[in-house]
């Protein structure tokens, strides 16, 4: 699904990630850990072609990202749902419109029933007409998750989804991501919250990818 072949990324003469060789298989569940500034967000950006590997190569859905045109990248992102650290909403649109944004940009019709169901699934039925600045941190993360899954993507990448929410909300978000994984989605969660990883371990066979010294170290379901 997403394959790294001795891939690396550098910027301004500085190597941030190097010698990464791994495969994110379909239906797998991964935690991406490492200290702040280790390169977790950079790794995720390489997974949805926000960044281009400067060494080796990255293949997404069998396509070498180096040869992708701008339109191909856009189409690729419709198959990958991303929950950003800062959510990245359009503040002039309602929550419903923000969640439906991937459908809008893809020219697909918006089914109000499905949208209501999705918002109910993430517990935002009451906030459907609210603007993003009116939402709490947890509500924003759940709205971002709803937007990430509305196109029924094959892969869901979540960058510190529980970074700004309390423990109860973290567990709720984790539960939603585990549900998605059970539907066959590949899930990658970047986090440095070891309690969250331990909590997930009981419910799902998660692999942990640890970034250390600019390299990815893989471990199995057990930490």
């Amino acid at each position: 699904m997403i394959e790294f072949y001795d891939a690396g990324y550098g910027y301004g003469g500085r190597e941030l990630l190097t010698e990464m060789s791994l495969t994110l298989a379909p239906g797998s569940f991964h935690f991406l850990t490492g200290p702040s500034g280790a390169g977790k967000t950079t790794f995720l950006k390489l997974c949805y072609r926000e960044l281009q590997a400067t060494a080796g190569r990255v293949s997404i859905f069998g396509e070498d990202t180096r040869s992708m045109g701008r339109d191909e990248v856009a189409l690729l992102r419709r198959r990958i749902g991303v929950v950003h650290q800062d959510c990245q909403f359009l503040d002039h649109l309602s929550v419903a419109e923000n969640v439906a944004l991937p459908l809008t940009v893809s020219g697909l019709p918006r089914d109000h029933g499905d949208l209501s169901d999705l918002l109910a699934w993430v517990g935002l039925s009451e906030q459907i007409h609210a603007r993003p600045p009116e939402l709490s941190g947890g509500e924003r993360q759940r709205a971002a998750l709803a937007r990430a899954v509305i196109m029924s993507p094959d892969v869901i990448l979540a960058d510190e989804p529980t970074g700004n929410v309390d423990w109860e909300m973290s567990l709720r978000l984790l539960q939603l991501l585990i549900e998605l994984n059970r539907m066959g989605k590949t899930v990658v969660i970047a986090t440095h919250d070891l309690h969250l990883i331990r909590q997930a371990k009981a419910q799902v066979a998660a692999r942990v990818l640890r970034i250390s010294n600019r390299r990815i170290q893989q471990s199995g379901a057990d930490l």
Partner: protein
Amino acid sequence: MKAILLSFLNFRESASGRVVPPSGFTAQLTVITSAAMAFLAVFALALSMATGRLAERWGNELARGSTVRISAPADQIDTQIAAALKVLETTPGVADARLLTAEEETDLLEPWFGPDLPLDTLPLPALIDIQEMPEGFDAEGLRLRLAGEAPGAVLDDHSRWRKPLLRAAERLRLLGVLSLLLIAGVTAGMITLAANAALAANGQVIRTLRLVGATDRFIAGAFVRRFTLRGLMGAVIGTLFGMVAVALLPSADGAGSFLTGLGFVGGQWVWPLTIPVLAALVAFAATRVAATQTLRRLM
């Protein structure tokens, strides 16, 4: 075509139209500037068309008429008139040559000297009115022959003053067309600046749209439609005001000067209606170029 037009008209309400946030003052400024440019374009068009009509009128009416003026002592005047008429009859390109009567000369002079002109007491020259054939005659050759046969005859073929006037009218028409091109250029520049400002101000919106899978075509389209509609709206307002202003100008009449003839005649009133369409096309092209360049720079 109808579907494209309807999608443009429904743009404001559509979800894809709402992805670009409303930008208040910039939007109003674009509409106002577009309206002002369209207003000026109506006048440039009116100037161009009026000078075109003027050049055509002068070209048609004056080119066909010439005059021979004969000043000679009383005992020679009839002889010279007869000689001049004979020369004119045998000149290729002259359709008709006729001596003006005393009444006709009085009519010609009446606007300057009043109705009670004592023509017989004034030493007025005799005037022969010449009607030319469409191909015209050789004015220099005729002058030489008249000098030989009727020394008091002077040919005035109006070309000495007609040609500079025609040139002036043609230049004015050219200036009108140039003004239209300049207005189109300024409109394109203004819309490009406004579009660039909007694109720069909405960098985060563009990044978010790209992250959820929007193509450059979709993002550019959202901005292009918005600015095209603003350009069109402003141009419609400006054109309507311009047309009303031109319609309220004093109307041309028989004795009207150039300024009183500045306006549109008959079917020419259709031409200013093309200004909003052209303004929309200019806005479309300018925004598309600006959006495409900006999007390429962003990622």
